[in-house]
C-alpha cells in the first residue's frame, strides 16, 4: 500500500543515512566476527549507529525500526559500559545481523513507498533475552540489581505541615503583576550591606517537555550565583530520574536566601524554557500549601556547594576525549585545523545528490551538445566563412565537450560499494552450507555509470551464490582432490575499452559439459547437433530459461530462473555474460558491461531518407561489395565473400521496410558488424560519417506498442534529424543462430 510523506527531502536523507549506517554496521560486525572480538572502537561505532538510527526513525515515526534500534542500542550501551567477556561472538553477530536485516527490509519498504509494517516482536524478544543473559553473567558479582530503584513519590515529597498563611504578597504567574519593589541597588557594591531576603518559589513545567528534574536543576544552577543559601524539593533531582514524574505532578519547590530583589529573581527564573507557571513570594508569607517541611526544619544548602560542584565537574574529566590543549585560554586555529583534518570517512567534502537531478543534468547537457552542433554546423553560418566565428565556435565546442565529460564523470561510481555487499553473501552462505570460503577482490575502484551499477548487483549476487552452492565443493571432497580446504572466490573489475569487465573466478568443481548437454537434451533446449557445439556454446546453455543441473532445488539456487535472469539483466544494459570452465578446477564468469549508456561513438548511415547510427565498437569494416562476391546459400539467404569467408547479409531496407533505397548490393555499402562471435553485414545506402552521439531511449509509447527488434535507442544528429541507434546484437541474432 503506497504511502506518501509530507517532507520528501527529509525522507530522502533519512533513507540515505539509514542505508549507509546499516551497510557500515554490517561490515563492522562481520569484521569483528572474523577477528573473533568486538573491540572498543567497534562497539562504540555500532552504538552510535544504532543511536542515530533510533533518533531519526523516531522523528520520522517509524516505530518498528525505532524499537529494534533502541533495543540494540541498549545491548551495545551495556557492552560499552561494562565491557563484559563475550565468549559467543557468533551468536552476537547473528543476532545483530538479523537486526540489521530487519531494518534494511523496512527501509527498503519505505524507499518503495510502502508502509514499513514488519513485526519486530520476535526479534525484540531475542535481543532482550540476549541482553538479560549478559546482564546476569556480569551482575553476579555486583551488589545492586541491574534495575534502577523505583522511586516512590512519597520518598521524595516531604511531608507538609501547613504553615499559617497570611496571603499578602501577590501570586506571580508567568504574566502576573509584580510586588512593590525595594529600592534597587546594583549587586556589585556592598553586597554585605544589602539585606538578605528569603523567598519561596514553586515551578510547574509544560506538559511533555521531558526531563523536568534536569530543567529544575537548571534553575538551581542558574540561581547559584545569586544565592546565599538554597533548598529545593524534591532534593534528589540529580540522582533520581524518577523525580521528573514527581515534578510533573506536584511542581518543583525552591527556597532561596538572596540579596536579589523579587523582580530580579522572577526575571531570572522566567528565563527557564518550558516554564508553565511560577509562584513566587517572600518566604515568611507563603502563598501556597507547602509540600516541603516546616521552614524551621529546612536545612539550608549554602549555595557554595553548588558552585563547587560546578567547578569540580568542569575541571574533572575534560582532558579525556579532546586533542586540544587545556592550558591557556584559547585554542589556536592551527591546532584545531590539524586536529580536524582526520575526518571520518563519508564526511569529507562530498555531498549526496539525487540521481534524478543528475539524470536531468545529463539530459540537458546532451541537448546542449546537440544545440551547439546545430548552431556551429548550420550551413548558412558556415557559408559566412568568418574566422571570428570559427574561433568562437571552437571555443564553444571545447567548453561543451568539457562540460559533458564532467557530467559524465559525476555519474561514474566505483564498483566498491557493490563488491563490498558480496562479503555478506559469502559469509552467510559459507555459514549455512558449512564450507569455508574466502573472497578476494581487485579493481573495485573501477568506475561505472550509476544507472548500470544498480542493475549488476543482483546478477553478481546470484553468481556468487551459485559459485558457493554448486561450485565450491565441501571440505572433505576438496581435500580428497588435493585442493586447499578453504575455497577461493575472486572478484575482479577492470576496464576494457568502452566496457568494464567483472570477472568472477572460483576454484570449485567446474562445469560438466556432459551434465549440461544431458539436461539440455532432456529439456528439449538443443537447437544444434551436440558434436557441432563449441565449449562456449555448451556452457551458454545454462543461460537458457528453465535450465538447472542440480538435482534438487536448494534454498539458494537451482530453480532454473537464476542464470537466464542474469543474462537478461546484462543484456538490458547492453552487456553480456561469458562463461569459461575447467572441469575439476573451477569456473570463470565474466560480465561485460558498458561504461555508460549515455554516450556512444557512432557511425551514421543512410537508408533511403532514414538515418541510423551504428556503435563504432561493433563495426569491423565497411566496403562496397563486388557483384561477384555476392551469392546465396542453400536456404536462399544472401551472403558475401570476404577474404575467403562467407558472411550473411541483412538488408536494412527490407528489415525496416524502407522504400526508395538502393537495392543493388554493388550500389550501396556493406558494413560488417559483430556481436560476440556473430558477424553479419548490414546493407545501407551510404555512410554519413562518425559522430559522438548522446543516446536517448526510445520513447515509451513506441516501446510499449511493439517490440522492434534491432533498435537500441535514438539520437538527434547535428542537423536536427532523428537517427535510430541499431542494436547489433539483436540484428545479428536474426541471421546467425
Amino acid at each position: 500500500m503506497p504511502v506518501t510523506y509530507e517532507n520528501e527531502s527529509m525522507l530522502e536523507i533519512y533513507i540515505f543515512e539509514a542505508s549507509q549506517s546499516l551497510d557500515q554496521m554490517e561490515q563492522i560486525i562481520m569484521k569483528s566476527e572474523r577477528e573473533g572480538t568486538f573491540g572498543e572502537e567497534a562497539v562504540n561505532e555500532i552504538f552510535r549507529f544504532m543511536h542515530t538510527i533510533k533518533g531519526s526513525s523516531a522523528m520520522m515515526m517509524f516505530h518498528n525500526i525505532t524499537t529494534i534500534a533502541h533495543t540494540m542500542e541498549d545491548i551495545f550501551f551495556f557492552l560499552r559500559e561494562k565491557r563484559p567477556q563475550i565468549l559467543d561472538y557468533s551468536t552476537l553477530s547473528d543476532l545483530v545481523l538479523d537486526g540489521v536485516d530487519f531494518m534494511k527490509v523496512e527501509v527498503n519498504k519505505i524507499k518503495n513507498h510502502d508502509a514499513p509494517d514488519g513485526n519486530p516482536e520476535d526479534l525484540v524478544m531475542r535481543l532482550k533475552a540476549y541482553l538479560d543473559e549478559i546482564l546476569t553473567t556480569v551482575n553476579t558479582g555486583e551488589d545492586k540489581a541491574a534495575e534502577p530503584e523505583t522511586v516512590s513519590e512519597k520518598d521524595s515529597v516531604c511531608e507538609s505541615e501547613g504553615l499559617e498563611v497570611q496571603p499578602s504578597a501577590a501570586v506571580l504567574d508567568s504574566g502576573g503583576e509584580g510586588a512593590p519593589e525595594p529600592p534597587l541597588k546594583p549587586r556589585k557594591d556592598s553586597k554585605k550591606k544589602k539585606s538578605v531576603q528569603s523567598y519561596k518559589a514553586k515551578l510547574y513545567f509544560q506538559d511533555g517537555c521531558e526531563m523536568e528534574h534536569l530543567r529544575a536543576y537548571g534553575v538551581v544552577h542558574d540561581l547559584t550565583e545569586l544565592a546565599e543559601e538554597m533548598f529545593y524539593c524534591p532534593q534528589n533531582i540529580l540522582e533520581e530520574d524518577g523525580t521528573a514524574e514527581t515534578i510533573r505532578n506536584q511542581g518543583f519547590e525552591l527556597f532561596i536566601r538572596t540579596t536579589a530583589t523579587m523582580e530580579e529573581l522572577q526575571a531570572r527564573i522566567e528565563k527557564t524554557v518550558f516554564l508553565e507557571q511560577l509562584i513566587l513570594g517572600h518566604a515568611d508569607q507563603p502563598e501556597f500549601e507547602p509540600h516541603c517541611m516546616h521552614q524551621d526544619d529546612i536545612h539550608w544548602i549554602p549555595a557554595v556547594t553548588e558552585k563547587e560542584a560546578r567547578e569540580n565537574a568542569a575541571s574533572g574529566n575534560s582532558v579525556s576525549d579532546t586533542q586540544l590543549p587545556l592550558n591557556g585560554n584559547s585554542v589556536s586555529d592551527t591546532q584545531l585545523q590539524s586536529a580536524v583534518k582526520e575526518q571520518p570517512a563519508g564526511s569529507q567534502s562530498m555531498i549526496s545528490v539525487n540521481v534524478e537531478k543528475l539524470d536531468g543534468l545529463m539530459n540537458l547537457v546532451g541537448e546542449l551538445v546537440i544545440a551547439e552542433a546545430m548552431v556551429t554546423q548550420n550551413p548558412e553560418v558556415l557559408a559566412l566563412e568568418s574566422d571570428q566565428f570559427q574561433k568562437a565556435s571552437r571555443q564553444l565546442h571545447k567548453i561543451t565537450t568539457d562540460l559533458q565529460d564532467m557530467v559524465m564523470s559525476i555519474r561514474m561510481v566505483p564498483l566498491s560499494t557493490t563488491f563490498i555487499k558480496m562479503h555478506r553473501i559469502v559469509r552467510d552462505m559459507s555459514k549455512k552450507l558449512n564450507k569455508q570460503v574466502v573472497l578476494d577482490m581487485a579493481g573495485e575502484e573501477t568506475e561505472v555509470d550509476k544507472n548500470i551499477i544498480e542493475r549488476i548487483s543482483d546478477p553478481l549476487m546470484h553468481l556468487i551464490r551459485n559459485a558457493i552452492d554448486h561450485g565450491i565443493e565441501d571440505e572433505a571432497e576438496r581435500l580428497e582432490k588435493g585442493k586447499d580446504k578453504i575455497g577461493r572466490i575472486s572478484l575482479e573489475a577492470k576496464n576494457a575499452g568502452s566496457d568494464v569487465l567483472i570477472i568472477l573466478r572460483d576454484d570449485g568443481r567446474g562445469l560438466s559439459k556432459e551434465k549440461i548437454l544431458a539436461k539440455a537434451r532432456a529439456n528439449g533446449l538443443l537447437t544444434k547437433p551436440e558434436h557441432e557445439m563449441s565449449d562456449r556454446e555448451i556452457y551458454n546453455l545454462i543461460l537458457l530459461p528453465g535450465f538447472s543441473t542440480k538435482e534438487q532445488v536448494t534454498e539458494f539456487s537451482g530453480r532454473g530462473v537464476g542464470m537466464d535472469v542474469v543474462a537478461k539483466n546484462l543484456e538490458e544494459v547492453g552487456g553480456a555474460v561469458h562463461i569459461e570452465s575447467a572441469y575439476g578446477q573451477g569456473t570463470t564468469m565474466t560480465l561485460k558491461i558498458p561504461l555508460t549508456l549515455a554516450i556512444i561513438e557512432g557511425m551514421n548511415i543512410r537508408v533511403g531518407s532514414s538515418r541510423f547510427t551504428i556503435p563504432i565498437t561493433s563495426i569491423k569494416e565497411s566496403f562496397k561489395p563486388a557483384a561477384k562476391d555476392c551469392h546465396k546459400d542453400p536456404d536462399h539467404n544472401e551472403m558475401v565473400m570476404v577474404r575467403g569467408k562467407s558472411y550473411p547479409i541483412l538488408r536494412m531496407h527490407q528489415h525496416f521496410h524502407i522504400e526508395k533505397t538502393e537495392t543493388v548490393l554493388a550500389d550501396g555499402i556493406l558494413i560488417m558488424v559483430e556481436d560476440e562471435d556473430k558477424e553479419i553485414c548490414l546493407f545501407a545506402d551510404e555512410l554519413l560519417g562518425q559522430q559522438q552521439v548522446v543516446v536517448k531511449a526510445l520513447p515509451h509509447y513506441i516501446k510499449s506498442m511493439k517490440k522492434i527488434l534491432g533498435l537500441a535507442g535514438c539520437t538527434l544528429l547535428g542537423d536536427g534529424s532523428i537517427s535510430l541507434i541499431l542494436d547489433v546484437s539483436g540484428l545479428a541474432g536474426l541471421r546467425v543462430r
Partner: protein
Amino acid sequence: MKRVLIVDDAAFMRMAIKNILQKNNFEVVGEAENGLVGVKKYLELQPDLVTMDITMPEMTGLDALKQIRKLDSNANVVMVSAMGQESMVKDSIINGAKSFIVKPFKEDHVLQTLNKVLGL
C-alpha cells in the same frame, strides 16, 4: 536575524533542525558533523547560538560544550539529547549549557527553547 550553528553527526538531524529554524526567521550559518568541527566553526562563525548533539564521534557534545564555553563564556549552547541521556544532560547543565531539547522533538519545542535562550 539570529545566527545558529548546528552540530550533529546525523545529516538527518541537522536537516530537521535546519528546516525548523529556516522556517522561523533564524539564519543557519553553519553545520558541523562532530564536536571538533563544531568548535572550529564556532570560532570561525561566532554564531548567536549552537545546537549541540550529545553523542558524536571525534569529540562528544559535552566536550565541545566545555571547549566553546572556555573560548566564549557567553556562548549560548543548547544540547540535543535523547531519553536515557540524563547524566550527560546534567553534566552539560553544570558545564554551562543554557538548555536542552529532547529527541524526538517537535517544532514548537525547538522554537520555544531557542527563543527563550536568546531572550526573544
